[in-house]
């Protein structure tokens, strides 16, 4: 690096511009909209027009109305379940990938990630047709003799949402787990063997703890994406699969109550930020932070 004094003025200006942009873009496109939302949540609606005056009415309604909190809570439980199921399925898959050699490893990884390239809506339709009463899943279960007749257990309800979200979001779980597993230096595993550990002990004491950061970020990814989704519940949830995202959507789309919708969004944002912070907290390895 040359001394600061020898830097050309033009270069200096450019680097200043880059710095300003780096800060300005997130501010303009992320923080300002969030702030506007926060502002809106304190307004109210009177006969279809927004009243621009400070009021805590939206929050009072959210916490006191018997509809919202239970749905909010059920949605959180649903999305935590989605995250857990995703992790449980993604971990073995990612672990298996890391045991493969060279070309196969990345070919299979790409194959697992290909669904991300497909249209979201098309995927939901596809899954819907699999889950339906006459869908592939029911037919297969009946054909295998596991069920006597088609079950409604996963047709237009919470289970359907859980299954669909899991299928849609699992690539987001595989990738971070795979990366964290791949980053574990092989020599640590050899050192564990060398010190007398069995394969299982090495996995439980070395591989698993060292991959937890990937698991944490996978879980927070999946949770955040799941809780923000309103389309999937709308399309596979039917009447019983009512989630917070759908309520939110209806406030903007059908009720035209933007201030209340904004207040609900703030509640959702709080949960999302909490999830990201928790993910970040556990996403760090002890020992890597001084």
């Amino acid at each position, binding site marked *: 690096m040359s001394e600061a004094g020898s830097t050309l003025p033009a270069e200096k200006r450019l680097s200043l511009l880059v710095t300003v942009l780096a800060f300005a873009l997130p501010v303009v496109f992320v923080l300002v909209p969030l702030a506007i939302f926060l502002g809106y949540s304190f307004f109210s609606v009177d006969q279809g027009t927004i009243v621009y005056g400070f009021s805590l009415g939206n929050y009072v309604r959210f916490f006191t109305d018997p509809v919202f909190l239970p749905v909010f809570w059920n949605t959180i439980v649903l999305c935590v379940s989605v995250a857990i199921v995703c992790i449980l399925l993604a971990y073995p898959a990612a672990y298996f990938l890391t045991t493969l050699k060279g070309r196969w490893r990345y070919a299979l990884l790409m194959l697992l990630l290909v669904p991300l390239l497909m249209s979201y809506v098309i995927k939901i339709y596809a899954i819907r047709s699999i889950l339906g009463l006459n869908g592939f899943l029911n037919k297969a279960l009946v054909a295998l003799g596991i069920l006597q007749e088609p079950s409604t257990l996963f047709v237009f309800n919470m289970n359907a949402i859980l299954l669909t979200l899991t299928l849609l979001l699992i690539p987001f779980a595989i990738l971070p787990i795979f990366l964290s597993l791949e980053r574990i230096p092989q*020599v640590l595993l*050899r050192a*564990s063997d*060398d010190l007398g550990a*069995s394969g299982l002990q090495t996995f439980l004491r070395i591989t698993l703890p060292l991959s937890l950061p990937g698991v944490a970020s996978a879980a927070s990814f999946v949770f955040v994406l799941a809780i923000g989704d309103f389309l999937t519940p709308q399309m596979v949830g039917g009447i019983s699969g009512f989630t917070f995202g759908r309520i939110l959507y209806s406030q903007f789309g059908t009720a035209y109550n933007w201030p209340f919708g904004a207040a609900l969004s703030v509640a959702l944002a709080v949960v999302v930020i909490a999830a990201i912070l928790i993910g970040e907290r556990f996403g760090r390895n*002890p*020992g*890597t932070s001084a």
Partner: protein
Amino acid sequence: MNQNTDLLTLRSVSKSYGTVPVLHDIDLSIKDGEFLTVLGPSGSGKTTVLRLIGGLEPLTSGEIRLDGQDISRMPINRRPFNTVFQDYALFPHLTVSGNVGYGLSVRHVQRKEIARRVAEALELVQLGRFADRFPAQLSGGQRQRVALARALICQPRLILLDEPLAALDLELRRQMQVFLKSIQREIRTTFLFVTHDQEEAIGMADRICVMEAGHIRQLGTPHDLYYRPNCEFVARFFGENNLVAGKLGPVQGELRSIETALGRLICSISDQPHLKAAAEGASAYAAFRPEALHLADAKDTDNRFSGTISDLAFAGSSTVATIAAGPDNAAQRLRLRVPSRVDGSALRSGEAVSLSFAPHEGHLVLA
């Protein structure tokens, strides 16, 4: 511990990666309680030897015996050996005590016992105060000592060290050499130390095994290797040396002459029966160390030749002169090392000198 019993024996051990052979028919015995250094340039197969013994890789052929039992197929976690890896391989998510106690805890030793032995091991490597730190919070030398404590706490029959000092700076490396040697004496465990640094090897080893291109070239004490190298590679690789090519002359007791460009040189062949047996006229080298060479005076009648000083290099405690010797002062480049003096050495660049070395300080190496 009996230094004369063999702990571990390698019998015609070979190793290939695919079709590329890296070890050819290695035979090696490691004595109980000794500090054996495997020395060689990179690509000589020295690390492979260590990995085969440690069980990190399977052999291609041959066998490894521990106390006479074949352990070639024994899995890595059953072998009573522990390795100190080149980059330490400390577990980043465990504290120093967690790392050191790992080998005991996977064997389900009781917590109290682990705590006691961890404290003991950390005391031994002088890291008692750092028990609760994580590896990332330690310096290179401290990590090194954690890795050592982690290996020796399991009381292995053999500790394998894979260039453990390579990442340290020179001063720390010297301290660690002394430290390793003293620990080895204290715990009386057999050490197998792999390095490419011959200074490190000389400083620590009871015996050195010199490897090149997948073969063992010589196995012996540092003194043996330095003064009685049995091949050109060892003579050149192990310390600075002057090698002068020639044809062997007749044997005269413990001495033998060799006809070279510097004239007839007489060198010692004591304890080297193969040199006594070699045919007259066979190609060989006269080898003598730069510190054995000196300016000749009237007493020196043997091994006397002339040359010109072409370069002088001050190297701290000693000064090294490069000398062009032989016919027309050009046939042979030699190095002469003399102790440095504050008022400058007696040597001048460009000066013609008469040189000599004592016959018992010279040796022969078959070409």
